[in-house]
């Protein structure tokens, strides 16, 4: 039996070897095909701008955008703006993580907690939270507070909902096993419930982060005196479409960056899952 297994393995290896070059070629071709159309679009955009079909008042040329990006970075303007915006997201998102996890733990671990906390959260969740901005300005003025508040408020819901669902979805059989090991309630929460709900929580954190950046973009458009939003508002007044596009690209990159960070945490924290190991 081991003979047939060994030969089967050999065959598979040989098949792998012969397939590898073709696979690599195939992958290159796929990547090439996927890049081709965005590049073509940028080329068309550049040509349209150069021949004057596309006015810079509508949209600046790609070459101008790159030049503007370099200029903004060299002057330090962009870096300061990124830092201010990033800190707003960090502050707001930290509040959301803390509040969301606390609420989800209370309502996930106790029936009373669920009865008290869950209904109002479900009601608030139904509200289009970006529409709360006028109220936030009335409550918190026009400083940092309404911006951070909006980021925090929007990001709480995905964190709360996924963690709450994760806690409720934990396998009863594992909790029973914990009981037979005399872990006690604190031990069961620490060793079984929290790690068991972690995969769901991390999904919520990733989703919450994208909501946080979205809230920031909206919050910063209004009466900002610093940050990326301020740069955009200023550029709009002077019809600088190149600056606006640079800032939008920065928003996108920041979103991708923070998402990648959470994915790295995910890959480490969930390394026990077969699909992550593989």
């Amino acid at each position, binding site marked *: 039996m081991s003979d047939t297994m060994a030969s089967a393995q050999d065959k598979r290896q040989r098949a792998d070897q012969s397939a590898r070059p073709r696979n690599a070629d195939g992958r290159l071709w796929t990547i090439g095909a996927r890049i081709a159309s965005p590049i073509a679009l940028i080329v068309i955009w550049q040509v349209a701008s150069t021949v004057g079909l596309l006015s810079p008042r509508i949209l600046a040329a790609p070459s101008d955008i790159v030049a503007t990006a370099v200029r903004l970075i060299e002057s330090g303007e962009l870096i300061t703006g990124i830092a201010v915006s990033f800190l707003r997201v960090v502050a707001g998102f930290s509040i959301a993580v803390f509040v969301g996890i606390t609420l989800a733990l209370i309502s996930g671990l106790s029936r009373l907690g669920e009865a008290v906390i869950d209904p109002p959260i479900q009601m608030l969740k139904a509200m289009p939270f970006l529409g709360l901005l006028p109220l936030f300005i009335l409550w918190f003025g026009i400083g940092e507070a309404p911006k951070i508040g909006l980021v925090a408020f929007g990001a709480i819901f995905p964190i709360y909902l996924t963690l709450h669902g994760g806690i409720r979805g934990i396998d009863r*059989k594992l909790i029973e*096993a914990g*009981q037979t090991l005399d872990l006690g309630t604190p031990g069961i929460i620490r*060793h079984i419930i929290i*790690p068991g709900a972690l995969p769901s929580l991390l999904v919520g954190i990733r989703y919450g982060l994208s909501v946080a950046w979205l809230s920031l973009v909206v919050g910063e458009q209004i009466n900002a005196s610093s940050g990326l939003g301020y740069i955009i508002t200023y550029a709009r007044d002077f019809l600088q479409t190149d600056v606006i596009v640079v800032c939008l690209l920065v928003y996108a990159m920041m979103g991708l960056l923070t998402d990648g960070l959470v994915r790295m945490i995910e890959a480490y924290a969930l390394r*026990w899952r077969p699909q992550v190991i593989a």
Partner: protein
Amino acid sequence: MSNLVDIRQLHRSFGGPAILDGIDLTIAPGEFVALLGRSGSGKSTLLRVLSGLDAAPAEKLEIPSRRSVVFQEPRLLPWKSVMDNVALGVKTPDSRSRASQALADVALSHRQDAWPLTLSGGEAQRAALARALVREPALLLLDEPFAALDALTRLRMHDLVFELWRKHKPAVLLVTHDVWEAVALADRILVLDQGRIAREIRIDAPHPRRRSDPQLTLVETELLQELGVEPSHA
């Protein structure tokens, strides 16, 4: 010698008819008892009461607090390594060295750093066994622990459980529906039927027990009849 487990008139029902209808059960220290029964006979309910997962009224209910359970599924925590899973069973400072000893006992030392989801069915169940034994239980409760394993692995697990029992000498209650498993391992076999203990058979045959032994075959046939299986199917 006083009994380790002493239960009189245990009743349990879930609203409908009684699942356990006046059970009397005693287990001596170090005794290996097998509990047979058809599905729905109440054997799992009885084991849940003994493991403390379920409360039920009884005239007398003496169960040692030092007890461990191995379930039909390994129920290892997938986010802890095999070693950490086993160490979870003990709270002493030397829990890791005791866990590594327990893993050596079940021949799983080479897998101590593995994630549970990468173990084979037999390996996972051996890890569960180590997690139960590391607690040095006075009473080891086995709830159909080999039912989900393939036939070959199951036979190897029988030998392993027997060796471990001989080494650590806990009292064992093995719930099973595999008649040969009960005959091969137990000192005493109880048959549960409709919430009552319908039959009790003591087996004194020496170990290792061969399936070809005519006396054991006789016991096996008798038990199968008690469970409502015609001998021709045995």
